[in-house]
Every structure is written in C-alpha cells, then in structure tokens.
C-alpha cells in the first residue's frame, strides 16, 4: 500500500493530489507535463515537494509536517527510468549487482539467477550497456531495480523510448513481473494501450490534479474520463475465456456478455484473457440487426451517456457485469432515442479487434 499526498508548485500549475495505491500496478496516466514524473520523483526522494506525506507499507518516507524526508538511498524504492540510466563503465552483471550490497535481504545468488532468468538476461551479463539494444537496456534497468530488494517499484515511461516491436518484446516481461513479484508498482505512462495491458488501478492526472482514480476496468470504461484517454485510444477492457476454434478458423471467446468471435487463434481452450475494445469500434442498434456482416452482436444495457467534444458522445454499456464503451455521434444518439437504462445491442466487427488488443489475463 502506497499513500501519497503532495502539494508542489510547478511551472504553470500546482501539483495537488492524494491517492492510496493498492498492490499491483497503479498506472499514473495523463498527458505529458501533467506532473506524473514529479509524483514518482517525490516518491523516490529525488524531489522534495513543498508539502506532502508519502508512506509505503506504513513506513513514512516523507512528511513535511513532521520534517521527515528520507534521502533516496534510504528509501529502498526501485526506480526504472525512461532512459534506463545504466552505468556505462560497468558490465550488465555489475549493473545488476550494483544495489545488492545495500539490500537488507537476499544476498545469495538464487535471487540473482531468478531475476536474470525472468528477464532473459543470461546472454547479456558480460556485455557493456553501450552494446545493448534499447529493449535490452530496459530489461537490465528493470532487473537492476528488482535486485536492490525494493519495497516498491517506480517505472517512469519505461517503454516510451522504444519502437512498437521493442515494446512487444518487453511487455511480456512486465506482465510476468506484475504477476510473479508481489510489489506495488507505480507505472507512469501516457499510452492507453500499455495502461490497459498492465494496470490494475489507474490514476488519471491532468494539470497536477487527480481526474479519476480506481480499478483499471472502471476508469477505462468511465465515459466521463474517456475524452482524457484520447479520441483514438478510449476503450474498455472485458474479460473472457477461450472456448475453442470454430471450423472456419474463427476463435470463440466466452465473455459475461456473450460469445465474441475473433479472426485469429488466441490460445488454448480454457485460457483466461482480456479484450480491449476501442470505443470507436462499437456500433449500437436498438433491435437485433438482421443482414449484418458484423459477427459479434451482444445484448447490452445503456448505463451512462456522456457528451464529449461535439459532435461525439461516449456511451457506457453493461454486458452483464462487464462494461463496454462506445463512441457515437450526438446525431445517432438522438436518431435512435438512446437513453440511460435502455436495452440495446452492441455490435463489434471481429476484424476490428486487433491482435495487440488481446491482452493476457
């Protein structure tokens, strides 16, 4: 459990927020310059806020009221920087081991071997950082932070400097980290796709203030917050289970809202997964449409309608316990007479769900 409350003047606005991050990955999400990095730097002790209190697992790291401010090296917080910041004069092995002498526990080799194996660093150990690719550097930086036996991890846009292919290479490691290592993680990002994939909680930050905070699936499906996620990027995440492959090659996913067909294999039957459905890919119909090419027609109930930047509207739908988000025009909403509480059908083209929107469990 990480408790943060901060007040700090930045150029142009004042950062003023308070949040309690549960275990798991808490994404600090928001546009560049919103103050996300300031928050993580304050947690790490690299920045001393004008006012604030920060505690991890009950231990107070900063309390300006009580004049407590632990220096960074006494906080035991692993920090993965966007630019990796590996020590250029040390080998990968020495970089990984840099924090070990200060770690209070696990000075044996087992932990080292485990982290090296988890991050796939075996072949890189004797290399220098200059000889690593961007993705390899990120993995080493992550391993280095893990091996100092931290109370929690801070990750400041660790993927922002990487191209799409490198991101795909790293993300599985981050997912493993989230699932295998029981550490609270504060993850700064301005990419909704990353947030949808990794986060258990999302804190939406704009101009130094908390616009929304809660479990990832609630924040991502909140039509009031959707505009902040970006026109192209807004979309909810629903859970499902692979049911199997149909004779024509379509994969069938069972969700609480009904079966969803996807045009590519998604895994073994029984495997749990999550689907990110872009709000712009969801069509609504009042009755069950006939003669339509779209394969996925799910009965739904309208739970919220929120106007966004004209002429668009975000509509939140309930599919059983799941929430879906649709972006429509005000004209469509008016023409169909859509109102909150109304039953309707959500239509999702199978082809519109890209393979990168199929997330792990």
């Amino acid at each position, binding site marked *: 459990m990480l408790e943060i409350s901060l007040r700090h003047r930045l150029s142009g606005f004042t950062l003023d927020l308070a949040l309690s991050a549960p275990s798991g990955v808490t994404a600090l999400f928001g546009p560049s310059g919103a103050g996300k990095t300031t928050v993580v730097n304050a947690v*790490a*002790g*690299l920045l001393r806020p004008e006012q604030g209190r920060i505690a991890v697992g009950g231990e107070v790291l900063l309390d300006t009221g009580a004049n407590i401010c632990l*220096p*960074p*090296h*006494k*906080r*035991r*917080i*692993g*920090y993965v*920087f966007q*630019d990796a*910041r590996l*020590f*250029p*004069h040390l*080998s990968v092995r020495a970089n990984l081991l*840099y*924090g070990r*002498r*200060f*770690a209070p526990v696990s000075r044996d080799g087992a932990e080292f071997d485990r982290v090296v194996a988890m991050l796939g660093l075996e072949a890189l150990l004797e*290399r*220098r*950082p*200059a*000889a690593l690719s961007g993705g390899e550097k990120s993995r080493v930086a992550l391993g*280095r*932070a893990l091996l*100092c036996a931290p109370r929690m991890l801070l990750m400041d846009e660790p993927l922002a400097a990487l191209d799409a292919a490198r991101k795909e290479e790293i993300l599985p490691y981050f997912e493993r980290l989230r699932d295998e290592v029981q550490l609270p993680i504060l993850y700064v990002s301005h990419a909704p796709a990353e947030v949808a994939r990794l986060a258990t909680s999302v804190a939406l930050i704009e101009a130094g203030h908390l616009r929304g905070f809660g479990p990832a699936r609630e924040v991502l499906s909140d039509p009031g917050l959707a505009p902040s996620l970006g026109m192209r990027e807004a979309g909810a995440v629903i859970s499902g289970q692979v049911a199997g492959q149909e004779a024509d090659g379509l994969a069938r996913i069972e969700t609480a809202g009904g079966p969803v067909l996807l045009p590519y294999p998604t895994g073994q039957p029984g495997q749990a997964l999550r689907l990110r459905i872009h709000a712009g890919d969801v069509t609504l119909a009042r009755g069950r449409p006939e003669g339509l090419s779209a394969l996925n027609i799910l009965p739904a109930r309208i739970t919220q309608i929120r106007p966004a930047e004209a002429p668009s509207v975000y509509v939140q739908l309930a599919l059983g316990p799941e929430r879906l988000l649709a972006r429509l025009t005000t004209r469509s909403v008016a023409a169909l007479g859509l109102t909150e509480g109304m039953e309707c059908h959500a239509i999702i083209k199978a082809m519109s769900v890209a393979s990168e929107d199929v997330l792990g469990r």
Partner: protein
Amino acid sequence: MNWLSGQDWQAVALSLKVAGWATALSLPPGIFVAYALARWRFAGRSIVNGLVHLPLILPPVVTGYLLLIGFAPNGPIGGALAKIGLTLAFTWKGAALAAGVMAFPLMVRAIRLAIEAVDPKLEEAAATLGASRAWVFATVTLPLIAPGVLAGAITAYAKAMGEFGATITFVSNIPGQTQTLPLAIYSQLQVPGGEADAARLVVISVTLALGALLVSEWLARRIAARIAGRG
C-alpha cells in the same frame, strides 16, 4: 652519463620530486573543489572560484611573494607549521607548495569539465539503488571522470615541472635544495659559457614534457575505451 654535471642531475631529480609531490597533494583537494564548483550551489561559490583561479591570473612573482608572507617561519601559517617541525620557505617542500598552488587552477578546470560531463541522472539512479553520496561518488562519478582527472593531473605535473616565478620568489634558487630544472636553466644562462649546459637541460625538459604528454594521451584513450565498454 657524463655530459651532465652532478648539479644538473640534481636539478632534474628535484624537479621530478617537486612536481610529483605537488601533483599528488593537490589532487584530492583539486577533485573536491572541482566537484563543489560543478555540482553545489552555495554562498560564496564565485569567491571560491575566483580564489582558485587567482594563481592563473596573478603575476607568478606576486603569488610567490604572498606565499612567502604567509609561509615564512614568522608568517601566520609558516609559524604554525614551524611548531610541528615543517619548514617550507627555502626548502624543496616549499617549492612543491609553490608548484602545487600554481598548477591548482589548471587541475581544477580539467576535472571540473569532466564532472560537468557526467550526467547527474546516473548519480540519481545510483542513489535510488541504495548508494550513499560518498559511495555514488566512488563507484559512479570517479570512474567516469577518470580521464579528466588524469588530464588534470598531467597538466598540473607539467605546469609544476615548469614553474619558475613563484618558486624563485618563495624558496629562492639554492642548488640541491630548491633549484629545479627551470631555475637551473636560468642559472646556467647567467653564467658565461653556460649555454651548452643550459641546452642539455632544455633537451631533457622537452623530452620529459613530450613523454608525459604521450603517456597521458595513451592512458586517456585506454580509460575512455574502458568506460565506453570497448576495452
């Protein structure tokens, strides 16, 4: 070798000793002052900066004279040192002090440039991994500035080898005691028929200087390659 007199050899040996001590003793304070000037914002920073650079801009005679006032056995600092049995005026130790003071600004400048080239973000990263400031300095900053420290030390050594004005003012020109290589050359030139001796000393002087330069460049390349991970 018999083409140099014993006195000439003495001057060469004394110069090496004086420059060696001057460099070695000014290196730790040189690194400290360079670090403070590069990284810390404190009141009086520009005054410290000015004081460090003073020997560079003052006439060496003036620096020597100030040293003489301060470090003479009846001077404020010299008196205190005399009580613990350390006499600087008119001894080779004084020559080392004069050389060190004159070389100090050059050393600080080289090291400061190197420190300013180290990304403070690396030092921050080391701190988040649990390293105290002193440990960060020893394991991150110092290895990364090693080429700059080496360059500073070599420049200081060369400057100390060639120091003339402050030395002759502070510790005079006593053969075997304070007569370093430049002072010996100067003395030979004052003696009728001493040009040949002076020329030999000049050859030694040039050889030493060039040798030091080549060695330092070779070392600097090696260290830089090691830091960049190519070595």
